[in-house]
């Protein structure tokens, strides 16, 4: 490769690092995208300029199709972001896998001496990771999109883990064999076998995991997609691919660690625990007594408050209630009431889910406070409004060892002087357990769809004001 190309790759590497670095602050975050686009442009231009790249029409064609599909994919509703991300990982895995396959057959046809131990090992890693990411992510996307022909509930059967791990080990074993005998008589058969096993493993890995655990799984798949790019870097002797892949890999790893920690669960538990199913069984508990409040009463109490904390959860996302919530925020701040949002790290169904929705509704991020920062002040809060959140405010996490959420840090809504909880029914949340916050003395339920209830509150408040 010429020095020009390498220099371009070097600059692209630095830009990718800056791109991630600037994400440490919403103020500089927009620069991230520009740095990323510039880096990618440089990488594409430099590669395209290689003297051995001659079929320009093919490239232009593929890029054009990529644009045609990519642009609409970027305009999905924000609630569909998780499945878009999963689909994208599927594409990334597919690309890595296909390039690995192409390189293998290319070197095979060029002669056995091309298939050095190092290259074959890298190709096997690339193909394994790539194809399992491909099918795994497709499955995950399907579950999140709630496609009919993909079972939402975890599908389990006895000995499942043995089968899955056995399949993975077999594929790895075949890989090692291929590395040792890259041009042996069986290699023409071994390589496709590895591909098929990897594709199958991706599907089998996801089947036993409930739809609600998908965000963590997606993050792990993100990691795999990055690692397959790293493997491609080893195959192609390209440092840029290795760096960009490693950045992606560590990002996926860290996000899944954050999620697991905030849920007080382990990787193994997520991947092999069939979490959703066990909990579903627990769902039907004995009904305790809730206190309800009317919209009028709630509005009156809110008007008396001087500090309000709103705790949004998955329910706000489902109900698309963020814009109504913004109106509530406006009504309250107009009265001089201090309104903050308390954001739990795993509120909703992906990390940062609430922040994107609230920001979409034009609520300044300076009022979106993280759990650790707002908890110390919760006892000074006059009214806490829980909008469609459940597990993330469940005090059982503090002491009840028998619950699946034991040990998970929560937002201390129960320390507020009054709590309003908005949900549709008496059903439990994601973890499938009753929430004693709802039975507490100072808690009043506002049953109904979040969008409707918050909308009514807003109407009541604005009506009250015009009546003044």
């Amino acid at each position: 490769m010429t020095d020009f190309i390498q220099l371009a790759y070097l600059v692209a590497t630095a830009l990718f690092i800056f791109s991630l670095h600037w994400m440490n602050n919403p103020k500089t975050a927009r620069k991230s995208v520009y740095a990323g686009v510039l880096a990618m442009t440089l990488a594409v231009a430099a590669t395209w300029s290689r003297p051995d790249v001659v079929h320009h029409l093919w490239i232009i064609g593929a890029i054009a199709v990529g644009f045609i599909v990519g642009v609409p994919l970027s305009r999905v509703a924000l609630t569909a972001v998780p499945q878009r991300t999963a689909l994208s990982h599927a594409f990334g895995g597919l690309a890595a896998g296909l390039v690995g396959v192409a390189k293998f057959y290319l070197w095979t046809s060029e002669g056995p001496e091309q298939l050095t131990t190092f290259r074959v090992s890298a190709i096997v890693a690339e193909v394994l990771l790539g194809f399992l990411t491909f099918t795994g992510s497709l499955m995950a996307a399907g579950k999140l999109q709630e496609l009919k022909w993909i079972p939402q509930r975890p599908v389990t059967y006895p000995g499942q883990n043995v089968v899955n791990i056995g399949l993975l080990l077999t594929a790895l074993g075949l890989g090692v064999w291929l590395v040792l005998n890259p041009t042996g008589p069986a290699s023409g058969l071994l390589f496709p076998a590895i591909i098929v096993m990897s594709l199958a493993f991706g599907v089998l890995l996801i089947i036993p995991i409930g739809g609600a655990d998908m965000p963590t799984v997606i993050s792990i798949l993100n990691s795999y997609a990055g690692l397959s790019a790293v493997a491609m870097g080893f195959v192609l002797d390209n440092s840029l691919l290795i760096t960009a892949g490693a950045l992606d890999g560590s990002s996926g790893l860290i996000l899944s660690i954050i999620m697991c920690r905030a849920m007080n669960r382990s990787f193994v538990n997520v991947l092999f625990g069939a979490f959703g199913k066990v909990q579903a069984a627990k769902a039907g508990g004995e009904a305790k007594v809730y206190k309800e409040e009317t919209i009028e009463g709630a509005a009156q109490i809110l008007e008396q408050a001087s500090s309000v904390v709103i705790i949004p959860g998955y329910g706000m996302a489902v109900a698309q209630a963020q814009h109504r919530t913004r109106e509530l925020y406006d009504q309250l701040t107009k009265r001089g009431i201090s309104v903050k949002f308390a954001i739990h790290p795993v509120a909703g169904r992906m990390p940062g889910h609430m922040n994107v929705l609230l920001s979409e509704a034009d609520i300044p991020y300076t009022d979106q406070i993280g759990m650790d920062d707002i908890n110390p002040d919760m006892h000074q809060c006059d009214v806490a409004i829980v909008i469609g959140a459940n597990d993330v405010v469940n005090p059982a996490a503090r002491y009840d060892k028998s619950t699946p959420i034991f040990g998970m840090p929560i937002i201390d809504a129960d320390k507020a002087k009054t709590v309003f909880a908005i949900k549709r029914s008496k059903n439990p949340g994601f973890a499938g357990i009753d929430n004693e916050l709802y039975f507490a003395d100072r808690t009043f339920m506002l049953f109904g769809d979040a969008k409707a209830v918050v909308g009514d509150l807003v109407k009541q408040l604005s009506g009250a004001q015009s009546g003044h």
Partner: protein
Amino acid sequence: MTRILKIGFIFAFVAVVAIGLSAASKQAQQQAEDTTVVQLEAPDVHPVPDTDYWSLVFVFLLSTFIGVGVVARVSRLLHTPLMSLTNAISAIAVVGSIIVTGSDFPEDIRILGAIALFASVTNIVSGFLITDRMLKMFKATRKEVEQP
């Protein structure tokens, strides 16, 4: 004084390890006469250039350190856009796809490349666009407070 002894001990240990490694590496060298050690001193006449894979492993190690350090400091507010940004970045596989698609390879191999290229470009385009779309929403202050 005990510290001096300790450090002295460590260096004695070094000598032992050195002798062991030395023996091991001499053996390894005999097994593979045409590895990089020789390459440094004498011309390499083997037809396949030995990828300098250790440099690549170093690059991987260092990049992982950077990745962990940088991502751990990403603002909690931005974890959703972070997912789509890294998504777009991992589409760097576009480099390999272009090489396979555009080179003078057999057509069946180039078709694989073209599919990979399409997939990568899709990720690049949709990843960056949606990240930008989300980041645009994050504002430190309200522009105007509309009446509902």
